[in-house]
C-alpha cells in the first residue's frame, strides 16, 4: 500500500484552505446583490463548476489525442478521471443554475445556449462512460474512449452555436421572463474578487480530485494484476 505522496498531501491542504476562504468570500465578503438578493450567491460556484466541467472536457479530449498518438496508457487514465470529475461538476452546474433560475425568473429551466450546451455535454460524458463499460478489451476501451472524447468535444461548440442562432433568429420567450437577461448584473470589485477566487478554488479542487482518482486507478490496476497472477500462475 503506497503512502500518499507528499505533493498530494500538500495539495489537499491547500485546496481545503482555499475552499474555506472561498466560502467566506462568497457568503460574507461579497455584497448582497441589489435585484436578485441572496440567491445570487449561487452564481459564484455555479460558474466555477461550469468552468471545471469545460476544463475537464478539454483535458479529456487532449488526453484522447495524446493517447491515440502515443499509446501510453497513462493518458487514458487521465481522460477517464477527467470525465468522471466533469460529470459531477457539470451536474452541479446544471442544478445550481436551476436553483438560481427559479426565484429569479420563476422557472426551473431556460432554453438558453449555455444551459442546453451544459446538458448536452453531460449527456456526452455519460455516453462516454457507458461506452467504456460495454467494452471488454482494455486497449479497445481506451481507444474508443479517446475517439469519443474527441468527437464529443468537437460537437459541443457547434451545439452552442446552433442554439445561439436559434435564439437570435427565433427569439422565443419561454416562461414568464426573458432568459436572454441571464447574468445581467454588474459586478462590483468585491464580487469580482469572490468570483475569480471561486474559479481558482474550483480549479484546485479539480486538480486534487484528478490526482486522487489517478492514484485510485493505478492501485485498482495493481489489484487486477495480482488477481491475474494468482489465478494464472504468473508470467
Amino acid at each position, binding site marked *: 500500500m503506497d503512502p500518499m505522496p507528499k505533493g498530494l498531501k500538500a495539495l489537499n491542504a491547500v485546496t481545503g484552505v482555499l475552499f474555506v476562504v472561498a466560502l467566506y468570500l462568497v457568503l460574507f465578503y461579497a455584497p448582497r446583490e441589489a435585484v436578485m438578493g441572496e440567491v445570487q450567491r449561487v452564481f459564484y460556484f455555479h460558474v466555477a463548476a461550469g468552468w471545471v466541467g469545460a476544463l475537464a472536457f478539454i483535458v479529456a479530449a487532449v488526453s484522447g489525442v495524446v493517447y491515440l498518438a502515443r499509446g501510453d496508457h497513462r493518458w487514458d487514465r487521465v481522460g477517464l478521471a477527467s470525465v468522471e470529475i466533469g460529470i459531477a461538476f457539470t451536474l452541479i452546474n446544471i442544478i445550481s443554475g436551476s436553483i438560481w433560475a427559479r426565484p429569479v425568473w420563476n422557472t426551473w429551466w431556460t432554453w438558453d445556449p449555455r444551459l442546453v450546451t451544459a446538458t448536452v455535454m453531460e449527456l456526452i460524458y455519460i455516453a462516454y462512460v457507458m461506452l467504456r463499460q460495454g467494452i471488454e478489451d482494455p486497449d479497445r476501451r481506451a481507444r474508443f474512449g479517446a475517439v469519443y472524447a474527441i468527437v464529443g468535444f468537437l460537437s459541443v461548440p457547434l451545439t452552442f452555436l446552433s442554439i445561439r442562432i436559434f435564439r437570435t433568429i427565433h427569439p422565443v420567450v419561454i416562461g414568464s421572463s426573458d432568459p436572454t437577461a441571464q447574468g445581467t448584473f454588474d459586478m462590483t470589485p468585491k464580487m469580482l474578487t469572490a468570483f475569480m477566487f471561486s474559479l481558482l478554488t474550483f480549479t484546485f479542487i479539480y486538480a486534487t480530485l484528478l490526482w486522487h482518482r489517478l492514484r485510485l486507478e493505478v492501485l485498482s490496476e495493481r489489484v*487486477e494484476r495480482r488477481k491475474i497472477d494468482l489465478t494464472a500462475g504468473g508470467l
Partner: protein
Amino acid sequence: MIEVRRLVKTFGLKPVLRGVDFDVEPGEFVALLGPNGAGKTTFLRILASLSRPTLGDVRLAGFRLPGQAASVRRVLGVVSHQPLLYGDLTGEENLRFYGRLYDVPQLEARVAQVLEMVGLAARRRDLVHQYSRGMQQRLAIGRAVLHDPEIMLFDEPHTGLDQEASLMLDGVLRQVAARGRTVVMTSHDLLRSAELATRVDILSRGVIAASYPRASLEPASLPSLYREAIRG
C-alpha cells in the same frame, strides 16, 4: 520468410503470448498445435496483421509489423475458421469483391481460374449462404489465394467439416502448398498435421514448447510428444 523474436501479447493486464520465437523458411509448411487458450489464434492474428504485438519483433517477407503492415497484407493470404464471405452475394461476386480490394489484375480470368482450382466453378452463381460449410471453406481458400500471396495462414481450417469435406480441403491445401508458398496452419488434429506439414510446432502457455521437423517425426509418436510438451 517469417521471423518472430520474443513476441509478447497482453490483453490489458492478461498475458497470452509470453515470448514466442518462431522462424519459417520459404516453402515450409508449419503446423502449429496446442491446447485451447494457448494463444494459437492470437498468434495467427498477429502474423495476419489483425492484432498488434505488445512487445517483440515480427517480420514477414522482410516487412516489419505493425509498421509496414500494408506491405505485409499484400503478400498474405488468410483463412480463419469464419469464412469471411458475404452470404447474400454469389461465389463469384465474393471473389470479385475481394479481387477489387486487392487490386488483382485481369480479375475475371483470375476468378475463373481460382473457382476451377477449388472445385466450385459449377456453383459460381449460387448465393454463398446456399453453400455447405465445406464449400464455404473452399471458397474462402479461393479468396485467400486470389492475389497469389507468398505466405498463407490457416486458422483451424478443418473446423466443422465432415470427413469428405476435410479430405477435399486437404487436397486443396496440398495444391496451395505445392506452389512453393510458405504456410502456417493451426490445428487440433495431430495426425492430419503430421501428414500435411513439413514441421510441427507446439504452442503451450504462450511459448513454443517444442518443434519437430517432419523428417525426425514418427507420426505415431506425436500424441505422446504432444502431451509431454503441454505438460512442460
